[in-house]
């Protein structure tokens, strides 16, 4: 077997989701090539060469791959696909954008968001917002797969020494172009790879009160998340939404504050190792999944918690 993994990176470094995807590739078994495509991404390719288990790095460094537009990325991956039995990418906004395009161009199915490798052609994946786990066998010669990063322990980022091959062909479709982006500026860790996540729900009552969560996040080196209800109410931006339609997180410690525990939210966090719930309603369903529940008013509990840390 021979596996092509598509790296998620910021041009300088690999994103943690890439290391988790490499772990899934190792479980499938076989030679692993890691494609780093971008504009000015030689630094990320150097980092890729050091990642555990990578046998070669393919570097496609061209303005055509700036911002990873789906049409160009998919065309590039398809042009390199020959000889690989598996093509894997993290199930990030980028991977989810271009990988189905790759699958369709190769006339194969995509297996989305896998959480376990059962056999080289058989994978487990959540369906119905994680309320059921499907085991799916691919009948295709080439398996196109996106990987849920939180379900696989990252491989080591250092220690490898893979050769870097430059990909010279350029795929420029001209179908779409980048206009602008507006990224949240934060010194806190990325939500999906943070060791600690503290999230607020409708009970936070106001966007101002999210500062209470931020202070605790900073003490614990964690990230701040929110429920869809809190996002819809305008308390927090949508890119920190945790749940079926937002981010999936599985940190060491998840602190749910003022969160009732709707199914759609639980789908995004119930694989966390330790769950703490702080809610004044002792009947809230979140307590049914929490390891430690504190029935308290969050506006008194949060300042106390911050002081105690």
């Amino acid at each position, binding site marked *: 077997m021979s596996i092509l993994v598509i790296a998620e990176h910021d041009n300088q470094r690999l994103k943690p989701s890439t290391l988790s995807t490499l772990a899934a590739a190792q479980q499938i078994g076989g030679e692993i090539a890691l494609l780093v495509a971008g504009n000015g991404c030689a630094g990320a390719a150097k980092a890729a060469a050091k990642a555990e288990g990578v046998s070669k790095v393919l570097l496609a460094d061209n303005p055509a791959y700036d911002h990873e537009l789906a049409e160009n990325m998919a065309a590039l991956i398809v042009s390199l696909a020959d000889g690989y039995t598996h093509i894997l990418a993290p199930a990030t906004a980028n991977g989810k*954008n271009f990988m189905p395009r790759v699958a369709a161009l190769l006339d194969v199915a995509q297996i989305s968001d896998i959480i376990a490798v059962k056999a080289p052609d058989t994978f487990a994946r959540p369906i119905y917002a994680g309320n059921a786990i499907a085991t799916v066998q691919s009948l295709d010669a080439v398996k196109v797969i996106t990987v849920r990063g939180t379900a696989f322990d990252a491989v080591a980022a250092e220690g490898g020494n893979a050769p870097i091959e430059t990909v010279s062909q350029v795929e420029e479709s001209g179908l779409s*172009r980048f206009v602008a982006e507006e990224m949240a500026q934060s010194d806190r860790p990325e939500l999906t790879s943070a060791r600690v996540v503290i999230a607020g729900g409708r009970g936070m009552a106001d966007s101002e009160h999210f500062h209470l969560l931020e202070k605790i996040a900073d003490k614990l080196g964690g990230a701040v998340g929110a429920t869809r209800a809190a996002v819809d109410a305008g308390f927090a931006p949508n890119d920190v939404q945790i749940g079926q339609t937002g981010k999936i997180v599985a940190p060491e410690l998840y602190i749910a504050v003022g969160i009732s525990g709707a199914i759609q939210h639980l789908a995004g966090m119930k694989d966390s190792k330790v769950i703490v719930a702080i809610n004044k309603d002792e009947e809230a369903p979140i307590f049914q999944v929490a390891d430690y529940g*504190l029935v308290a008013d969050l506006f008194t509990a949060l300042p106390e918690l911050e002081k105690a840390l």
Partner: protein
Amino acid sequence: MKVLVTVKRVIDYNVKVRVKSDHSDVDLNNVKMAINPFCEIAVEEAVRLKESGQASEVVAVSLGPQAAQEQLRTALALGADRAILVQSDEPLESLAVAKLLAKVVEKEKPDLVLMGKQAIDTDNSQTGQMLAALKGMGQATFASELKIEGDQAVVTREVDGGLQTIAVKLPAVVTADLRLNEPRYASLPNIMKAKRKPLETLTPADLGVEVKAHTKLLQVEPPPERSAGIKVADVAELVDKLKNEAKVI
């Protein structure tokens, strides 16, 4: 501008899903079904394009069992002009749906295809991207804002860490994220009116598509149960437990 909008019949999002006792699939018998919420957002966006004079016609398409007519009638009640059902009693994989939609696109020649970003049953998030690939169209997934400017769509997308705006040439596929709009409720007069709007039924054979399975569902299990832990009395006890029992801080 002609807009094609897709709707999928799925389990209502408020219904608690149960796995069949033989673990062959989830149990959909006597379960309330509805339009996939993201498809509903796509329909709303299409109707708004028509109301603002940018779209001339909105055609709703669904692929699935005969009962998916109900979801098409809902789309018609929300403001779509006519509907097409590609009827298949066999479950259709994303690639098959994309191939069938590609044929509908060839027939209808829309300038814009609006779809939901994912269906809440299989949670695949594939079909829009696959359709775009098969037709050589550009794509803008996870849209939170859509503007039509001449021969292009300017789309703001929900991406990891923030928002990205791209311009994509028409015809294109745009898939709707949650914040694109808030769908309206269908009014009773519009529900009545929708019953008289045209609804055409086709089969995969009519479209010349042979549906082939690329995957096999081996089993479906309930997720591992998480049991409730303990209640702590106060913040001091919580911090003590996290430090000394769970050892996570």
